[in-house]
């Protein structure tokens, strides 16, 4: 489903990051491990079309994503990839439901309130539906950002350090939710982390 081949990224003109080739099949769950600053985020951005690599190719579902036009790539990303970041960046001017509606409409999909309710209920934050991001706790925000990542049933869920700013209880809950939501939707899940708490849940690892 996802293939990376001879990827290389040069930054600040001289520092070179080289990544091993990696093949991920549909529905697999992977951890991308590495210390802070090792290039996890860089690889994650390269794999999702946010950062063009200096060398090499990323193929998702038989499409070499860097051969798409900018707008096509944006569209592809919106439709097939759901993101969860370390900090749950929700759009501050929109409430929880509106943030999910935004995800559906930016991906070019039909607005489905039913799907939104379903996801919010599954993540047990349906009582915060009409609250604004500023009114939610970190744990709640991270759950909303997971809801936003899975609402379009993406083929791939990409999480970048989703647990590192959470306490043990919330971290466990977030990992549970990510895994269960990925399983329900049949999505491929990649979690980039240096958090040892995640290793207990997911076996396949890729070292950066």
């Amino acid at each position, binding site marked *: 489903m996802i293939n990376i081949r001879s990827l290389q990224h040069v930054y600040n003109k001289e520092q070179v990051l080289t990544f091993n080739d990696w093949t991920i099949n549909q529905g697999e769950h992977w951890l991308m491990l590495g210390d802070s600053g090792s290039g996890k*985020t*860089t690889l994650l*951005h390269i794999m*999702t079309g*946010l*950062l063009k690599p200096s060398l090499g190719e990323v193929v998702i579902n038989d499409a070499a994503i860097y051969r798409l036009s*900018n*707008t096509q790539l*944006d*569209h592809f*990303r*919106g*439709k097939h*990839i759901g*993101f969860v*970041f*370390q*900090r749950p*960046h*929700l*759009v*501050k*001017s*929109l409430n929880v439901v*509106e943030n999910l*509606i*935004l*995800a559906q*409409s*930016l*991906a*070019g999909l039909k*607005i489905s309130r039913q799907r939104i309710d379903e996801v919010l209920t599954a993540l047990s934050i349906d009582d915060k539906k009409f609250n604004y991001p500023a009114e939610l706790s970190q744990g709640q925000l991270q759950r909303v950002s997971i809801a*936003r990542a899975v609402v379009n049933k993406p083929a791939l869920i990409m999480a*970048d*350090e989703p647990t590192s700013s959470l306490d043990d209880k919330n971290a466990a809950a977030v990992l549970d939710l990510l895994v269960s939501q990925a399983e329900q939707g049949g999505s491929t899940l990649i979690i980039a982390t240096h958090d040892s708490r995640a290793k207990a849940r997911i076996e396949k690892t890729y070292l950066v």
Partner: protein
Amino acid sequence: MNVLSISTKSLRSNPLSAGLNILLIAFGVGIITMLLLASSQIENKLDNNSKDIDLVVGAKGSPLQLILSSIFYIDFPTGNIPLKDADALAHNPLVKMAVPLALGDNYNGFRIAGTNSGFIKLYDLKLAKGQFWKNDFEVTVGSVVAESQHLKVGDHFFGAHGLTGNGDIHKSHAYIVTGILTPQGNVTDNIVLTNVASVWKMHETKEVHANGKPEAYENGEREITSLLIQYRSPMSVVLFPRMVNQSTSMQAASPALESARLFSLIGVGVDTLQWFAVLIMVISAISVFVSLYNSLKERKYDLAIMRTMGASRIKLFLIIITEGICLTVTGTVVGLVLGHLALQMIGHYQDSTQAKLSGSIFLVQETYLIGVGSGIGLIASLLPAMQAYRSNISRILAQN
């Protein structure tokens, strides 16, 4: 969720800054609207009141004063002219029509003008009720006079000496209302019309005036205030005024010329205010720019996240542009409303009934203001929008 709703929701999440920007634009547009409306109304009034009058002949003095008193009924007359001199001019072959005007009295601030039926033709007057004045002491009143003084056909009232105030009332004769005019949209709405003889007779009984000096017509010599003249041919424009000014003891003044002079005097103030308004608009454009630019710093994550969710660069560009245009167009509309309200209020508190301004008149030029408003929004948001378009989302997201 389209671009417009994303933009308006973002604006609404920061109401203070949006409010300030809208207020600034509204202030600038409001001033421009007021100027636009007021100057067009004044110009209109000037044109309307003097539309068919080519020349005013009166006593020597300031030509502007002569026009103000005999066309707009605002200033004091320059004095009186002998009736026989006026008659001689009226029968000049260059003159098509000459209408006498005898001023001097008022009724509760509304001027009483003695004239003849030529005045009806000159201003194309129509009756709402009753009939035109015929005999002595019969009057036909303008629509505003009738309404504000609650005058009906058949009512009696006393005139007072002078052009304002009612300290010195002519108790010897009462005027009787025989007719009321339809609203004409010019100065005739605010005057009381009667024949010249009534004005003379009102003053024949020798009254002792406050200043003790007897008026000229009280000495038996028939006089009028001025003569409103219509030319027979455009040729007269060159010949007639010079003839009057050089060979008689009277002066001739052209309403068109003097109105233009008057308007150019007002124009200086209008220009100053206009530049002031333009300055406010420039400041508001800068303010819109600064607040969009600042909000971008705060929202760069929001925008980057939208890119990860499938929004294209163009979409982000449009979101920012829309925010700018929304602010300025809202401000413009608010400004238009404010301008109209302010002018209506000024009109309400205005003393002069002759030059009342109204806020309920709309102009085509106002729609251009909305165009100008969106233009300002576009220009002010262009740079921030370019920045949103060009932002490196990978770098922003990596800056966790």
